[in-house]
């Protein structure tokens, strides 16, 4: 059905319809809104209010109509123009598959959980008899030696466990240029030419064997496809916050993704993971230079995936979003704070796209619109705040302050027909997608997998209430992020906390500024116009209670079935298998990973292996580092210095010998004492014994 580029005509018609619907709805909203505005506020404020209202109304309209498109697509049995519908065949077992690398870039992730996930993916492929056909790369950007040494050991253990026939590789970059996109680019420069395709996973990604094979098959059947993106379902959620995100993703997400896919067709976005990439054109066209603009628009591109999709499209390749491919999973950030931390990075990255929109030529319109959508996702927050401020100002200037929709509209009375219609339309745009999703589940009889229709409705009600409470918190946080990004204030680039748990103190520190702002605003509104207090309260109150709400959300619910999703009762094999995490703990638990690396003869002795020869300044520096570490212990060196020693065998061996005859009371002597106790308590914790025969030969030689 979707041969050649005939899908472009269909996509054009669908996008035109979307524009028409959003424009009509926005114009109607503007007329209704303008009719209720007070004239006393002055021209500038009402004009500005109308502009901001128009943008926000259009913004929520895009979300609503996308969900409507999705609903119609799903109710009509799927999109006949999608790749997965037009290329249905999968290769039979045993049929050779194209050379493909599965890459997982990581940066300071929970090691055991990450490796457990990768193991589950490989095991699933193994059961399908496909694991041998793929190469797996764990691409680490971790800088803390306590983490990367654990990664290295866990990867090695996994390789031993799986068998040597599996091609699993661990690669750590010593220079972390350009974050994740730089890590992928580094992989492609070294090994990219060996592969036709690259399946990209995140540290929390899980892909079933069927999903990976299906992606490769689709790529083979569609040479014009440069990237195929799956729509990952959230899974393995444990905290209340993660379960809320998981439920929303599972219950409403399918509508949005089906709608988005039907509008974008072959000009979809790339989300950076749970996708397959055609390596050759990606290498040829999707390199990302550092930005050369002022302030925020300088340095590495932080949100690389949308740009890579745009570059792939510009090079003439298609980018498809395929929601019908199942078996693709990822995890939600476990806490609200982690979610906001991720948003802080994404916000900055998405705002950088303003520069690329202005400077990058020949990008297709659909990809430009995707970039604009990404920017608006964060700009909507300061716009909403502006709208609330202006709305309050105009309402105060009017004859009587009677808010129509607490937290939303301060200027429109529900007493008039127009006002009532506007309120009803706004509510429909905001909550319509949720109702459509519930209707879809009811019509397809899938409510049972959510625990039954009553439980599904109750879960959706609960999720909606929390989402309403979180909206002002996100709004204030995103506004601050936009301000910080605009002034190019520094941003720490850290890996995500996928394991969860934050304390109340951290929450209060995180939300301190929004809380103070909300308190002052609420006090001013109440002092100036008491009638507007209950309009401001739904926005101000959740922000004031943010630390308490965050703490409640960050904890685990009493029941595993709270906000039940289908995977809770029947987890797919890849999820069930990932649950049994790898257990490559340290050999000696009382020692740190670095201490173990330095003290273990098996790790630190270079033996017969030929050491890399260094000379000059590097040699001198390594010598100084070894001396300092030998004298003052691990804590005397920073992550980079310690990593340098640990990744340089002769330096490690020199430190090893120094540490083993450290003076009494020194850090290494204390570590040796702990090692001695560990070996006393657990004699089996020594390394594997040498062969008897070789031992005897040595003994005879030495004795004679």
């Amino acid at each position: 059905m979707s041969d050649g580029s005939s899908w472009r005509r269909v996509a054009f018609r669908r996008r035109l319809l979307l524009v028409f619907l959003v424009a009509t709805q926005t114009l109607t909203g503007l007329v209704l809104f303008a009719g209720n505005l007070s004239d006393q506020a002055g021209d500038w404020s009402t004009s500005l209010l109308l502009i901001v209202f128009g943008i926000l109304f259009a913004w929520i309209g895009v979300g609503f109509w996308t969900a409507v498109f999705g609903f119609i697509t799903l109710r009509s049995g799927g999109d006949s123009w999608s790749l997965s519908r037009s290329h249905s065949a999968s290769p039979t077992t045993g049929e050779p598959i194209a050379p493909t690398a599965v890459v997982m870039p990581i940066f300071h992730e929970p090691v055991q959980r990450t490796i457990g996930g990768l193991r589950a993916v490989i095991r699933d492929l193994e059961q399908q008899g496909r694991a041998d056909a793929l190469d797996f790369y764990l691409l680490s950007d971790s800088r803390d030696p306590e983490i990367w040494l654990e990664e290295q050991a866990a990867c090695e253990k996994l390789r031993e466990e799986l068998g040597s026939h599996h091609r699993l590789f661990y690669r750590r970059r010593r220079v972390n240029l350009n974050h994740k996109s730089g890590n992928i680019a580094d992989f492609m420069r070294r090994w990219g030419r060996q592969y036709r395709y690259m399946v990209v996973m995140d540290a929390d990604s899980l892909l079933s064997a069927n999903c990976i094979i299906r992606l490769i098959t689709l790529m083979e059947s569609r040479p014009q496809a440069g990237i195929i993106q799956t729509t990952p379902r959230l899974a393995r959620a444990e905290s209340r916050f993660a379960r809320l995100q998981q439920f929303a993703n599972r219950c409403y997400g399918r509508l949005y993704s089906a709608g988005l896919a039907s509008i974008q067709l072959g000009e979809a976005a790339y989300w950076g993971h749970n996708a397959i990439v055609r390596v050759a054109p990606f290498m040829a066209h999707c390199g990302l230079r550092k930005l050369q603009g002022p302030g925020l628009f300088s340095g590495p591109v932080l949100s690389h995936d949308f740009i890579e999709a745009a570059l792939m499209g510009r090079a003439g390749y298609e980018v498809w979003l395929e929601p019908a491919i199942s078996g693709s999973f990822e995890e939600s950030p476990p806490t609200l704070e982690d979610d906001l931390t991720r948003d802080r990075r994404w916000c900055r990255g998405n705002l950088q796209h303003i520069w690329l929109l202005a400077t990058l030529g020949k990008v297709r319109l659909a990809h430009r619109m995707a970039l604009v959508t990404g920017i608006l996702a964060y700009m909507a927050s300061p716009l909403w705040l502006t709208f609330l401020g202006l709305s309050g100002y105009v309402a105060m200037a009017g004859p009587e302050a009677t808010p129509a929709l607490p937290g939303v509209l301060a200027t429109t009375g529900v007493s008039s027909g127009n006002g009532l219609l506007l309120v009803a339309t706004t509510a429909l745009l905001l909550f319509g997608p949720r109702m459509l999703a519930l209707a879809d589940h009811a019509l397809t009889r899938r409510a049972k997998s959510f625990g039954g229709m009553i439980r599904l409705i109750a879960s959706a009600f609960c999720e909606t209430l929390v989402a309403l409470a979180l909206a002002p918190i996100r709004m204030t946080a995103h506004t601050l992020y936009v301000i910080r990004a605009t002034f190019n204030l520094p941003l720490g680039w850290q890996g995500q906390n996928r394991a969860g748990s934050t304390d109340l103190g951290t929450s209060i520190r995180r939300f301190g500024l929004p809380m103070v702002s909300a308190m002052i605003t609420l006090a001013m509104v109440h002092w100036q116009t008491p009638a507007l207090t209950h309009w401001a309260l739904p926005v101000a109150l959740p922000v004031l209670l943010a630390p308490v709400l965050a703490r409640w959300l960050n904890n685990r619910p009493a029941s595993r079935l709270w906000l039940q999703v289908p995977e809770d009762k029947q987890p797919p094999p890849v999820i069930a298998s990932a649950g049994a995490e790898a257990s490559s703990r340290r050999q000696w638990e009382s020692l740190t990973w670095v201490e173990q690396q330095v003290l273990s003869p098996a790790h630190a002795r270079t033996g017969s292996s030929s050491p890399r020869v260094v000379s000059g300044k590097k040699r001198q520096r390594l010598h100084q580092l070894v001396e300092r570490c030998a004298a003052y212990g691990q804590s005397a060196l920073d992550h980079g210095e310690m990593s340098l020693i640990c990744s340089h065998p002769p330096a490690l061996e020199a430190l090893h010998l120094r540490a083993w005859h450290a003076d009494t009371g020194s850090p290494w002597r204390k570590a040796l004492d702990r090692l001695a106790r560990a070996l006393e308590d657990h004699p089996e914790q020594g390394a594997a014994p040498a062969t008897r025969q070789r031992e005897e030969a040595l003994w005879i030689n030495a004795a004679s």
Partner: protein
Amino acid sequence: MLQIPETALVTINQPFNQVLLYLRAAGHDTGAETRARLQHFVSLHCGRQPSLSTRQLLEKVPQWFDLPDQAAFNPLPPMTRGSVGYPDE
């Protein structure tokens, strides 16, 4: 092979203990036979060099005992250098 009963092993000085700990950390057995061998080597070297340090002993250990091989990490596949193309803005 020498057969020396464990009760005959009397030298419990610091370098000796350190080497024993080293052998255990390396996964080598530290039973009577190993102790006897170590005792023999230490005596041999002490005869030549009375003030033998732990470091000197540790450096000799790989020659005296067959320690397990160095932990070998999976090497990366051979590189096939390629280049990444950048868009002309």
